[in-house]
């Protein structure tokens, strides 16, 4: 009897295990969820649910914007579906766009992908320039143009941008015998990235071997390239990275800084780089507003207030997002209305005060939310004003569909090698070989 009971108990356990494994398999096959039930018009309470497909921390929810909108529009219910990394979000988005299924009512698009989406998927999105209440003048012109096709259709509305400044450690600068006042520091390298590297040499002389001048070669080359009007593509859409003197100059200058030991041999946002933030091993980093968030997250508490923000030698943009409405959505009109509201200047200003996502609407730059902007890492520094100044000087840059592949090649298969002892020429050759192979269809 006892043995039999034990046998049946074991059977139950086995069956349960099989059932749960089977359920897991089925769940694996199942769709990403709520696009069926939640986008079918209206739930039990008769509300219309609008779904947003986002990545990273875009902060609409944290800033309470959904709640506010739901209060203003009692028949609307907002749900967001967030993928943590854009590297995972974007391939899925492309997949959903090409198969025209699984799309949310609103989809976010990162600035690194916007050119490709504009070039290849524009017909899948609503033209937002024709949506009610959208005023082109609300946005910085270049931000608006990035999401606009040659035929003049605007497939996404800009949310934030990443006006780049240089964040620097006041304590490390002081130790190295450099000025610490933000205006004086800005003057040290104003107008020319070469001067920035020269300051790096001075820093190294003063600071010795314990710390580096800058965080990574990738950060430097990205900053230089961001401030150019043309980098990898020309205005007609041709790939010109190999022949564009600005790209070669950026590469050589970064390689030079790497050879002189001014930049760490690190790749940004990787665990080892995070450690160097925590251990305060470098004095400067190219710094859009969101970078302060990264620094805050990775730093030791003692570092709070030790940073300050100076202008970059030349201003550029790094990062930013767009919101678009796929045509296949079930609530196109409501979704358009929602993103028009979410990206309006007032909401962008609110988002900055909560999430430090810098607005792409220039009219906010004089609003108190922006001018009074502060950050824990930079203490009393008026970072809102500093970034607003940078934002106004950002050039209108030609962006291309494969910018990311080219830049990744120049960074991960290029300048990083110089920090590992290869010559600038070897690194350039290796990068070009990789990029050309990756671009070839």
């Amino acid at each position, binding site marked *: 009897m006892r043995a039999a009971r034990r046998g049946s108990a074991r059977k139950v356990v086995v069956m349960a295990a099989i059932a749960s494994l089977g359920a897991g398999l089925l769940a694996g096959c199942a769709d990403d969820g709520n696009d069926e039930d939640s986008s079918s018009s209206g739930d039990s309470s008769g509300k219309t649910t609008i779904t947003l497909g986002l990545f990273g921390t875009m902060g609409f929810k944290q800033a309470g914007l959904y709640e506010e909108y739901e209060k203003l529009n009692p028949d609307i219910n907002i749900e967001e579906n967030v993928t943590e990394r854009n590297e995972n979000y974007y391939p899925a988005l492309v*997949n959903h766009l090409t198969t025209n299924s699984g799309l949310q009512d609103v989809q976010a698009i990162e600035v690194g992908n916007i050119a*490709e989406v504009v070039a290849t998927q524009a017909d899948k999105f609503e033209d937002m320039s024709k949506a009610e209440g959208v005023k082109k003048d609300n946005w910085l012109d270049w931000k608006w143009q990035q999401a606009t096709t040659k035929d003049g259709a605007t497939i996404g509305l800009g949310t934030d941008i990443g006006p780049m400044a240089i964040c620097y450690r006041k304590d490390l600068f002081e130790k190295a015998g450099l000025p610490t006042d933000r205006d004086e520091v800005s003057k040290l390298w104003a107008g020319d990235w070469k001067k920035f590297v020269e300051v790096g040499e001075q820093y190294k002389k003063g600071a010795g071997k314990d710390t580096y001048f800058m965080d990574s070669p990738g950060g430097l080359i990205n900053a230089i390239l961001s401030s150019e009007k043309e980098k990898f593509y020309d205005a007609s859409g041709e790939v010109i990275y190999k022949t564009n003197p600005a790209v070669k100059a950026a590469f050589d200058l970064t390689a030079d800084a790497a050879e002189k030991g001014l930049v760490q041999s690190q790749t940004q946002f990787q665990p080892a780089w995070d450690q160097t933030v925590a251990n305060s091993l470098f004095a400067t980093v190219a710094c859009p507003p969101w970078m302060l968030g990264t620094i805050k997250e990775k730093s030791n508490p003692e570092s709070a207030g030790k940073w300050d923000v100076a202008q970059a030698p030349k201003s550029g943009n790094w990062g930013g997002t767009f919101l678009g409405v796929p045509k296949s959505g079930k609530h196109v009109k409501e979704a358009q209305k929602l993103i028009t509201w979410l990206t309006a200047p007032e909401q962008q200003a609110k988002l900055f005060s909560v999430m430090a996502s810098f607005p792409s609407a220039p009219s906010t730059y004089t609003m108190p939310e922006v001018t009074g902007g502060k950050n824990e890492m930079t203490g009393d520094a008026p970072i809102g004003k500093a970034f607003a100044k940078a934002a106004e000087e950002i050039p209108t840059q030609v962006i291309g569909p494969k910018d990311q592949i080219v830049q990744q090649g120049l960074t991960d298969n290029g300048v990083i090698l110089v920090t590992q002892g290869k010559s600038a020429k070897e690194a350039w050759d290796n990068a070009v070989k990789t990029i050309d192979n990756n671009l070839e269809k």
Partner: protein
Amino acid sequence: MTTRHDTAASPVKGGAAPGRPPGGRASAEADRKKRAKLSRRWQRDMRWSPYAFVSPFFLLFLAFGLFPLIYTGWASLHTVELTAPTDMKWTGLDNYTRIFDDEFFWNAAKNTLWIGVISTVPQLLMAMGLAHILNYKLRASTFYRVVMLAPYATSIAAASLVFVLLFGRDYGMINWVLDMVGLDKIDWQNGSWSSKFAVSTIVIWRWTGYNALIYLAAMQAIPQDLYESAALDGANRWRQFIHVTLPSLRPTILFTVVVSTIGASQVFGEPLLFDANKGASGGSQHQFQTLGLYLYEQGWVNQHLGRASAIAWAMFLILIVIGILNAVISRRLRASS
């Protein structure tokens, strides 16, 4: 089955029951029909049910095995981009011929081979040793067996991330130990051989226990009297291992070699996650990019579906060649024994 039906039906046909009412004939006829119908259904059941029972596998295979295989083959003859998978431009064998001068492909092939050798050979040798030890009477042997299988049950991603931390250049534990004993730090991820060695370590860690258990199972099936007679002939433990255990394990060894070779040719997750730049190029100089990783990079990062498909088929063909070589060698081995 028909014979059984006949025997069952015969009494009715004979009409032997004498005291039946006159209507009995009609009802017997109906009964016969019903039985015939049932029997037909049963026949059909017997004939077709087995196919129904095996169909789940074949349907899944069709959907997730054969169709992708054929579709990939078709795509490999075109220029196709992931951003517009339906927009195919015919290029014939161009995607294949260019593989011949694609230095990245051959670099990846070489890396795959080396990582395969560095990981498979020690892995199988260690598995054999472990199995031999576990084959002795040990206390808590089940515990050891479970422990050995634990790495196999761990996800590649989790394991690789831990190994990335161990092999880190600046803050890795291995370099910390090297530093403590006075040796130079090694840049595991950026060296050509050090990175291959590190990737192989992850593979070895993951699969040694699995292979050891397979060897152990085979060892336990070897009859004890073989060892006894060997012992009577004066063979020590080592000689017993060489002359009794190894020959008896030959088919098992062959099996693990084949499975490990296939596994080694498809190594993907370990090198992908091992990359310090978190790209798919297998290191700055592609120093540990395997074929699987190169395929992924072309298809999903660079979005060249056509090229990626051709690489996939080239890998498939290489595997077939390896398979044929394996079969030839194993036939030779069998013939010689």
